[in-house]
């Protein structure tokens, strides 16, 4: 199975194979769960939600700088 992940910001797209749950995907991407939201079809996913072959998800970083 392959999941397509759009990471932003900055915008980039990667394909990740053989990930069963959101937590697995984030681990493979080496992204901290507490720093991102994962969105599929406009809905938030939790770390334990299952992923399916062909899924397209957005991994949105919630950290912003400034000041």
């Amino acid at each position, binding site marked *: 199975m392959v999941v397509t992940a759009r990471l932003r910001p900055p915008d980039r797209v990667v394909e990740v194979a053989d990930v069963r749950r959101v937590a697995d995907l984030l681990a493979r991407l080496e992204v901290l*769960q507490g720093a991102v*939201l994962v969105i599929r079809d*406009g809905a938030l996913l939790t770390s*334990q939600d299952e992923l399916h072959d062909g899924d397209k998800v957005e991994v*949105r970083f*919630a*950290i912003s*700088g*400034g*000041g």
Partner: protein
Amino acid sequence: MTATRSRSGSPSAGEGDTVAMRCKRCRGTVVIEVRRHNAAFCRDCFLHYVGQQVTRAIAKYRMAGHTDRLLVAVSGGKDSLALWDLLLELGYQADGLYLSLGIGAYSERSKAVCQEFAAERGATLLVHDLAGEHGYTIPEAAGKGGRSSCGVCGLSKRYVFNRAALDGGYDVVCTGHNLDDEAAVLFGNTLRWDTAAMARQFPVLEATRPGLVKKVKPLYRVAERETAAYCVLKGIDYVVEECPLVAGNTQMRHKETLNQMEEAAPGTKHNFLFGYLDRAAALLKVADDADLTECARCGMTTLAPEDPAAEAVCAFCRSKARLVKPLPIVEVASR
């Protein structure tokens, strides 16, 4: 939906017993986990939770009343738009203020997002322009006069927000600083033992003199991942892309460090910030004896110079003088 849950109660993949992860409040289907509270929420209960955190913040520090006129500093980002939405939902008289910083397409997109947000809610948005009103943009200012782009940006915003609130007769300026922002700033100040800056870091800064407007941070109890989730769940279109000038920003590095610690021990940022506010901030405030006076150039409040004979000029006017060169004097022959 099922999830594995570790002994502490927080879910972890691939180990432990498999149990259904349910909303802490109503046992409904979970859309987000809040690990520092060992909790997970459905959509409606999460929105309730965020509203409750803001209500508690406002009540604890007496930030504002429903008869006050609030001015919300909005950038088009998740925090400030979530804050404006929450304040309107909670029944406050809250207008928005957008300051255009002149950062090309990024600033144009940010302004458009704020205008659209205001139009959808019938809310009032004031728009100020740094170049038009003060003669410089943030990209022009970057690296000049010894301040980083983020340093000049923060200084400019604080000045313009205070002045706009005074001119508009507002009682309170509200900013979207969240738990992560405050923890990262405290972390940086602590690493430098900058006790003067620490003494001024508080969820509310009262208007202690004429010329100062009360400043409040109603989101200080809400993590930035939660403000982003609030926007997604409420359908608030915010600017996801990062400011193009923020690369290498110190506060970002501090946030990354704190997030690593938070991942290993959920609640670290919360305990660091709230422990400071509850047990240490008052001690530093007592020790902060900064003497204030009026800026000789603009009349705004500033620190009094150590030498009583020296002219008191605020940081904004000093910075502006370095950035905006006066026009050359050209002699015109009289007829």
